[in-house]
């Protein structure tokens, strides 16, 4: 792969995402307009009421008396600079709060998805190699149960077992605030706090990857090039790792990219249950507190993250499958 080739490919993929991002901007603007009340209503509510002339002057000041398309243009110009407006709940710019919360969510995403991907792919490959055996049935049944269990129910059951009955794991938060741990103690503390949220978020995706990987390995194992490799004397392990896995991984990587936005959505429930200070918990609180600017900021930021992740999985896909020409 030439570096310039990769760069042009990268640029082309990013250009394709531009209309999608613009559509999302228009979408969030429409949702804001549909929501009852606007910025001035919130301001006046904060002040405890004001007379009609003052409200009209405020509306003019915020540009709310302009035609809708002018407002849309201004809104989009602001969004491009990551200016999501003012949060009347936090009395701070939305962007400042979002940056504060982003790290926790990305950490939860990262650990959950890597766990789901590695274990799912591993178990899927094992199940496929021993297809229709007892091992395969056990793994497939486990996958079905993980798939059917909603993350919030799983979370409660884990809390019941590991926190209430056994007392092994902390129930909520990102770290023990009262303990003032430093260095490695702090790291271990955070890891202990993340075990249950990570498990709750990853198990359903683990089941997706498991099922897809199993089907994919079964399909690839039947192809001619595998038979050729076996005829030339490749051992089963080498056959699996060098010949089958690399090809069987392709659909799983596609799914990983496609599902990233769903995982971000799933973090709303998990972060709320475990009181993790991330974007998901913030989204839930914004709905309760009717903080629409915040909610739209979260939607836009999440969309940008998803676009970036999809772009990265595209690159990974191109690396795995050399048949895809980077034109």
């Amino acid at each position, binding site marked *: 792969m030439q570096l310039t080739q990769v760069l042009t490919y990268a640029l082309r993929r990013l250009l394709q995402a531009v209309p999608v991002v613009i559509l999302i901007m228009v979408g969030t603007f429409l949702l804001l307009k549909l929501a009852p009340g606007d910025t001035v209503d919130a301001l006046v509510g904060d002040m405890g009421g004001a007379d009609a002339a003052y409200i009209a002057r405020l509306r003019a000041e915020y540009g709310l008396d302009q035609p809708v398309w002018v407002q849309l243009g201004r809104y989009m110009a602001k969004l491009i600079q990551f200016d999501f407006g003012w949060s009347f709940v936090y009395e701070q710019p939305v962007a400042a709060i979002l940056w504060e919360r982003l790290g926790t969510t990305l950490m939860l995403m990262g650990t959950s998805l890597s766990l789901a991907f590695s274990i799912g792919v591993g178990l899927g490959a094992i199940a496929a190699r021993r297809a229709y055996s007892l091992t395969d049935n056990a793994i497939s049944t486990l996958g079905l149960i993980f798939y059917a269990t*909603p993350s919030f129910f799983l979370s409660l059951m884990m809390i019941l077992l590991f926190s209430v009955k056994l007392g092994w794991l902390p129930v909520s938060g990102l770290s023990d605030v009262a303990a003032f741990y430093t260095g490695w103690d702090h790291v271990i503390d955070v890891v202990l706090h993340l075990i249950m949220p990570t498990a709750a978020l990853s198990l359903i995706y683990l089941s997706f990857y498991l099922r897809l990987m199993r089907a994919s390995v079964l399909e690839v194992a039947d192809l001619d090039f595998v038979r050729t490799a076996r005829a030339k004397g490749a051992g089963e392990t080498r056959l699996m790792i060098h010949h089958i896995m690399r090809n069987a991984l392709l659909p799983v990587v596609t799914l990983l990219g496609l599902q990233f936005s769903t995982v971000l959505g799933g973090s709303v429930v998990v972060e709320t249950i475990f009181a993790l200070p991330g974007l998901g918990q913030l989204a839930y609180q914004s709905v309760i507190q009717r903080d*629409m600017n915040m909610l739209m900021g979260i939607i836009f930021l999440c969309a940008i993250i998803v676009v970036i992740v999809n772009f990265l999985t595209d690159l990974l896909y191109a690396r795995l499958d050399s048949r895809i020409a980077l034109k």
Partner: protein
Amino acid sequence: MTAATTDLPRAEAAPAVALWRRFARNRAALLGLVLFGAVLVMAATAGLIEPTDPLRRAGDPLTKPFTDWAVPLGTDQLGRDILAQLFHGARISLLVGVLATLLSIAIGVVVGALAGFFGGWVDDVLMRVTEAFQTIPNFVLLLALVAILGSSIEYITLAIAIVSWTAPARMVRAEFLSLRSREFVDAARNLGVSNGALIFREILPNALPPVIVYASVIMALSILLESALAFLGLGDPNHASWGNMIGQGRAVLRTDWYCAVIPGIAIVLTVLSFSLLGEGLNDALNPRQKKQ
């Protein structure tokens, strides 16, 4: 050789019978059917278990299960009958699941059919819109829609359909792309069949089977989305819902875990029944796909 001894091929079984035979060969699919039947029966008999209001006070708060036969599965912290809520919850789950699935497939079929049939700029525009919907995390969009529309059961169903039509749209589009240049479509077009009839009468029936199988997935996801909303306390407060029961049960998890566990098992078994049914249906409709 007389006609009586001629070996004629046996009459083919009717398609529906053949389909059933292939479906019934799969034991997991039959289990799914039985579970699904149980949920249906629960939804149908909810009125017999509790004819007036499942959310009324039926006994002492936090009665343990199997101790009082007036409330066989016990009561929650407000004294509401868990069994009655479970049966009425089945009704809400199925109602939301079925309606949201039908609605999202309807949107998906229209978008996918137009994009796949016409191609060109229509396809470009519709696919960018689809990508935009797929890029926004669906649960966050669902929260935003519920915050704006309100959380009555009708709006929740509509909102779930709005966040889940993209997958069927992509499937229908892919089917249309491969079907639109087949000979039977060309033949119909040469006979002067209009575009509308081509889309809905000629191509759509051939494009639907994978979407029908996928409907079981959408149905399962819709039920999960509704219960997650209700768990967070954003569901319709006027109806019993499994998610809401679990959310309420969270407050008494330490002492009375059965309040959350009973509806939780109901959700797991319902979703399980859909995925088993879907897999069985897939194997029965595409017998060649299955190995062995």
